[in-house]
């Protein structure tokens, strides 16, 4: 599995140096930016798992940068830990309202930094035995805690085509017992359980070393934004909104369990790597593909393949996310001298002309034509 990427945005080289030293013995990839403008560009380019963001910076300060991150569909779900020399109540409330996962007050110790980051990103020591990444074909257990049996059945139905077992309960106490016997691979819990039961349950899990790394996803009515923000700030690994969309449920759970979902997009046909882009490219799908394409192209070259077909034939509307995704695949191919072809429908071909980045793309109508063109 690719090590998690952490982006540090701070105008101080001293802070960057301290962050580098803190993570020196962990398997993480670090990226650095010196102000908010550079930070936004780096976030879009690197799609990190976490951003550590300073407040006071030249050119664009941390608050403005945070607001821009939260208003960008592709970047808004990247958790942010604010690094600030200002610990006053007003300042903390201000940044909490915009939506940070946590904040660290300067001066800070290395341990305080690692503690905060480890609540968001799984940190593994360098040299630790590699854990075989689970993929989407592996069995998993999902524990659902909801006081409405219909919701549990709804989730069970949506996941029936997966190898995942759904265990349901309407009580947090029973959920604790279930976890005590055998830890699930993920927990889905209704945020509308009375007396903030979901938040308390999360806190319980996180305070126990045996359960602290179980991903917990909140279930919430689509319009309950405040409840969702509270959950995100508390450290939930994701939110699934009701009414439940099967694709969203699957993606959120797969992401929370850190599953290798690349099989959904990557296959091999006649010694050619096929990258099949789904009809709807959500920010999380785009992020996922962009994160794995480097490793996948390395793998294919390692196994002797040098041709790739990017199949976007299911896409009928090009948005900036799709353009960025296409560019990242092309860049990965060019870096390794991989020959590539793009397969798309007529509507895609027409719309591609409108974007500077894709106007010169040669688009083939089907894989046969693309294969013949190699």
């Amino acid at each position, binding site marked *: 599995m690719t090590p998690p990427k952490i982006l540090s945005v701070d105008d*101080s080289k001293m802070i960057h*140096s301290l962050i580098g*030293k803190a993570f020196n013995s962990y398997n993480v990839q670090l990226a650095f930016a010196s102000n908010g403008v550079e930070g936004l560009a780096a976030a879009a380019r690197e799609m990190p798992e976490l951003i550590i963001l300073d407040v*006071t910076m030249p050119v664009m300060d941390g608050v403005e940068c945070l607001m821009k991150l939260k208003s960008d569909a592709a970047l808004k779900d990247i958790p942010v830990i604010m690094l600030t*020399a200002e610990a*006053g*109540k*007003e300042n903390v409330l201000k940044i909490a309202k915009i939506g940070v996962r946590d904040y660290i007050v300067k*001066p800070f110790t290395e341990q305080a930094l690692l503690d905060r980051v480890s609540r968001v990103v799984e940190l593994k020591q360098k040299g630790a035995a590699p854990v075989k990444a689970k993929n989407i074909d592996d069995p998993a257990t999902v524990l659902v805690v909801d006081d409405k049996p219909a919701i549990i059945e709804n989730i069970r139905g949506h996941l029936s085509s997966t190898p995942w077992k759904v265990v349901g309960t309407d009580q947090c106490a029973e959920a604790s017992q279930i976890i005590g016997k055998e830890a699930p691979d993920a927990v889905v819990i209704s945020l509308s359980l009375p007396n903030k039961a979901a938040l308390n349950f999360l806190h319980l899990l996180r305070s126990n070393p045996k359960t602290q790394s179980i991903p917990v996803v909140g279930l919430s009515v689509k319009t309950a934004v405040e409840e969702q923000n509270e959950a995100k700030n508390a450290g939930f690994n994701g939110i699934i909104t009701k009414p439940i969309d099967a694709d969203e449920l699957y993606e959120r759970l797969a992401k929370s369990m850190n599953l290798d979902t690349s099989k959904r997009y990557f296959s091999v046909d006649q010694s050619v790597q096929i990258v099949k882009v789904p009809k709807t490219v959500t920010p999380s799908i785009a992020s996922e593909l962009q994160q794995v394409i480097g490793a996948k192209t390395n793998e294919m070259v390692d196994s002797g393949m040098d041709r790739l077909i990017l199949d976007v034939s299911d896409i009928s509307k090009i948005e900036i996310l799709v353009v960025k995704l296409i560019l990242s695949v092309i860049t990965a191919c060019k870096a390794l001298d991989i020959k590539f072809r793009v397969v798309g429908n007529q509507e895609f071909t027409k719309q591609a002309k409108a974007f500077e980045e894709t106007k010169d793309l040669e688009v083939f109508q089907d894989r046969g034509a693309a294969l013949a063109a190699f």
Partner: protein
Amino acid sequence: MQIILSFVNKCVSDVFGTMVGLVPAAGSGEEDVARPSRHSGLTGQISLTGKFNGVVYASFTEGLARGIAERIMGSASLSDGEINDVVGELTNMISGNLKSQMCDRGFNCQLSIPTIIRGESIMIDAKDAPLSIRNTYNFSELNEALIVQVFARLDQ
């Protein structure tokens, strides 16, 4: 003013104790300091604007700045730029913590980004500041001293 001096003392102690592992010995401090003052080395300056309106200066000798920077960065071969950066960030932390204390007491303000001044004879003078404090912080391990000055006014 005593309370602001006590805030500054705590900020300096916390910042250097946490980031450098050295807690300097604070002097007794001065209020209504004689102005101007002259310093040699590096001075970090941060402005505060708002109900607590003024400037914080943290003056390091060259030896102190280099000694502190080497401890933090873990390197003995630092450029002037890297040392400037450390001085700026430490001044930022002292000022930020002072700002937090003042904001929590109703004196809201904003911080500027730090400015670093280097020279053999840096003169600091805030002529009209109704509030002026200065204290010296001795780092016995380094045989050097830091001087922190705050010139400000409080707007109700």
